[in-house]
């Protein structure tokens, strides 16, 4: 059997990592563009081919109706759950069947696991190109606070991508593994993980034993709908309103415009992590340029609600572990959003110690996944991870109440047995409803599954069926039943409340093989062509801008010649040649781009002067 890789399937970016045999240290694998981050963006081309990562991200601007981002937010969720989400994202959701969301991209529809599978397959390809051999097994990370359906959806995505997911590891735990290897920490550790779309807090105890180091998770909490995206949403809403005060622009039909604004604002957000002020300059369709100077203080006031929302789960996790903030020996910050100075300061003040940020917050989760992959592969025998289930498992009882059978923060695998009998003579079935959550009533918890126990006809109260609920090391539920009178094991057909059936997955797997068979060179070609088309379109647009009239004839001729050369190589099938052409055109248009940028800035300044008069 081949290697096991570690994959961080993130809301914004995804990565794949492995353990370097010689050093025993984990390392991220770069993709064809040399970067280790693969944007979690998928685009379906008109001819049906799939584009993933950086080139797909560029298509968010040019072909938003064929491109999807942040699909992780839809994993394992029902259509009713994502109504709020859909107001912010330009996703087109088709009429759902069986409580499964289906997203339309161009003229095809996909379930969230299928879209995630495209990302996983891309990373699998990166790893295969890197090792020069097949990779078919992986450890994949999930937010610690993911419920059963969200975990199952992630495992399904792996299956569709042709990857056996050997273990789902919780993201904050993975980060602790990576830091543990790096720092040789001991004691109690709090991991604060604010990613693109999810927030997790985990409290761990690192124990040295004669057999090796144990990473025992004591408690975990979080919010699967809280992340850096929410910061971007706040910024976007703020700027939308400002723009609308001056200009009558309807943003929603301009998918493109909203995406461009979002991208510009993310740039501003990043600048504010380093600088005290940053200025947004955003060209509007009217030709005017909207400008706004953000100070760090104003920015922090704007995003404080997001930071405040993380503190509830933090306090709950500490209470569940029966610890105080000052009991923590170490605090680790994970996730791109923790680069924000306000978050660093908040964590430092709350725990009264300087948080660890030494490892790249974008890479640390993938690195931890690679450590766990190495543990499973027995490459390392002196590390053990004991994780917990984030949510209580319950069974609906009489009157719609919930009886908790496995409490939250139980070490997994964990199980519970419940005994069932009949209430009336010759009753042939007992309905069982399994839920996850902390609330008292079934209607307030997350429905995992409903099923009917088959019972042979007998007088009421005589049958004795023992049902075993088991949460495995991935945090996924298994159910088995045993007739205590006959000792017979029952197979239980469990139809998940939110999820895809096994037969449907088989079908998707078959379909996905056609994508798998596009070989490496072919995929490279598709990506290179996409990239070329996007820069050709951008250059053509720039050349029609009145400002471009000021470039001299020689420069214009040089650009035109480079364009012609690139067009010619796009028609051919050598992806390296196309890449070279793209680089050359990028180089040839450097001056032009600068020119246009300056004119945008000066027109913005003029605009301001006019307003001041």
């Amino acid at each position, binding site marked *: 059997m081949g290697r096991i890789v570690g994959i961080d399937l993130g809301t914004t970016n995804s990565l794949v990592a492995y353990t370097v045999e010689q050093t025993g240290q984990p390392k991220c694998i770069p993709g064809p563009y040399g970067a280790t981050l693969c944007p979690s963006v998928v685009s379906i081309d008109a001819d049906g081919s799939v584009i993933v990562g950086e080139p797909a991200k560029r298509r968010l601007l040019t072909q938003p109706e064929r491109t999807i981002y942040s699909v992780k937010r839809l994993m394992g969720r029902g259509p009713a759950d994502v109504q709020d989400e859909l107001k912010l994202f330009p996703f087109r959701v088709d009429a759902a069947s069986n409580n499964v969301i289906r997203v339309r991209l161009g003229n095809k529809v996909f379930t969230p696991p299928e879209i995630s599978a495209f990302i996983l397959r891309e990373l699998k390809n990166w790893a295969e190109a890197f090792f020069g051999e097949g990779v078919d097994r992986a450890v994949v990370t999930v937010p610690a606070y993911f419920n059963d359906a969200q975990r199952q959806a992630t495992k399904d995505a792996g299956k569709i991508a042709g990857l056996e997911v050997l273990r789902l590891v919780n993201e904050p735990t993975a980060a602790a593994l990576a830091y543990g290897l790096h720092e040789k920490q001991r004691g109690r550790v709090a991991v604060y993980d604010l990613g693109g779309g999810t927030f997790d807090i985990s409290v761990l105890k690192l124990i040295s*034993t004669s057999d090796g180091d144990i990473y025992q998770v004591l408690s975990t909490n979080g919010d699967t709908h809280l992340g850096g995206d929410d910061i971007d949403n706040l910024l976007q809403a703020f700027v939308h309103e400002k723009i609308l005060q001056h200009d009558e622009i309807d943003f929603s039909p301009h998918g493109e415009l909203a995406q461009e604004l979002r991208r510009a604002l993310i740039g501003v957000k990043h600048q504010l992590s380093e600088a005290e002020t940053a200025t947004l300059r955003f060209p509007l369709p009217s030709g005017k340029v909207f400008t706004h100077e953000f100070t760090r203080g104003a920015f922090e006031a704007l995003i404080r609600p997001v930071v405040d929302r993380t503190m509830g789960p933090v306090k709950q996790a500490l209470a569940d572990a029966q610890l105080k903030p000052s009991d923590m020996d170490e605090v680790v910050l994970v996730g791109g959003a923790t680069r924000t100075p306000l978050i660093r300061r908040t964590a430092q003040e709350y725990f009264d110690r300087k948080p660890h940020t030494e490892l790249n917050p974008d890479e640390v989760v993938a690195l931890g996944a690679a450590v766990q992959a190495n543990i499973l592969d027995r490459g390392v025998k002196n590390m053990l991870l004991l994780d917990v289930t984030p949510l209580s498992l319950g069974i609906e009882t009489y009157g719609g109440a919930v009886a908790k059978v496995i409490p939250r923060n139980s070490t997994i*695998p964990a199980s*519970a047995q419940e005994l069932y009998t009949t209430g009336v003579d010759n009753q042939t079935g007992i309905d069982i409803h399994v839920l996850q959550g902390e609330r008292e009533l079934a209607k307030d918890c997350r429905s995992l599954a409903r099923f009917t126990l088959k019972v042979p006809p007998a007088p009421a109260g005589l049958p004795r069926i023992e049902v075993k609920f088991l949460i495995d*090391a991935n945090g996924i*539920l298994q159910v088995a039943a045993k007739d205590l009178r006959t000792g017979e*094991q029952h*197979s239980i057909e469990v139809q998940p409340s939110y999820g895809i059936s096994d037969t449907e997955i088989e079908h998707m797997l078959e379909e996905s093989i056609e994508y798998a068979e596009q070989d490496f060179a072919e995929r490279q070609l598709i990506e290179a062509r996409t990239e070329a088309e996007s820069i050709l379109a951008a250059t053509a647009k720039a050349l029609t801008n009145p400002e471009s009239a000021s470039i001299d004839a020689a420069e214009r001729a040089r650009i035109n010649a480079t364009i012609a050369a690139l067009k010619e190589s796009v028609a051919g099938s050598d992806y390296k040649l196309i890449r070279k052409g793209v680089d050359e055109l990028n180089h040839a248009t450097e001056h032009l781009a600068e020119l246009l940028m300056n004119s945008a800035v000066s027109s913005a300044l003029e605009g301001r002067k006019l307003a001041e008069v």
Partner: protein
Amino acid sequence: MTTAPTSSSTKPVESQDYFAVFGLPRKLWIEMSELEQKFLQMSWKLHPDNFVNATEQERELSLKRSSELNDAYRTLRDPIARVEYLLAIEGERKEGEKKQQAPPELLEEVFELNESLDELREAKASGENLAGLKARLESAEKNFQGKLGEVDGELQAAAREWDAALKADHAERKEVMARLNELLNRRSYIRNLVTNVTKELAEV
């Protein structure tokens, strides 16, 4: 969610009771640091991480044994869950048997408390001044907290008796168990009261 396999060719391994999992006698006094040491040692051996490349049978067995270990540790680590579990395996306490009626000696105080709670709810609804009621409830909360402490003390004493009577005759053991069971019921009743009062007060 997956479906468990219908049948397995593995030789069935009988489930052990949680005390036996750790090789402990059915005593209620447990040295916690020793329990933790044993738990960690056994986790090294049983955890599914060690069996990823093993046969399906071994993987099934690891899942079964490690979940049993975790269930046992979770139960024995908690002193109250430990007593409940002991009474269940000794046949003294059946599922759902928890009595929710007020212990006779507390009847009067419980009655008063419930009255104050009703008044508080009414006062909240009509927007009256709550200060007096709040003080009365806070002192009742404190009173029942104290009673909870007393029950815990009695439980500890009864647990020591159980440990001492481990080798005693059936009748004597039965008598200690009945007392433990009654104390557990009283404890759960008082705890519910305290939880309710705390909740109502938090909403003031």
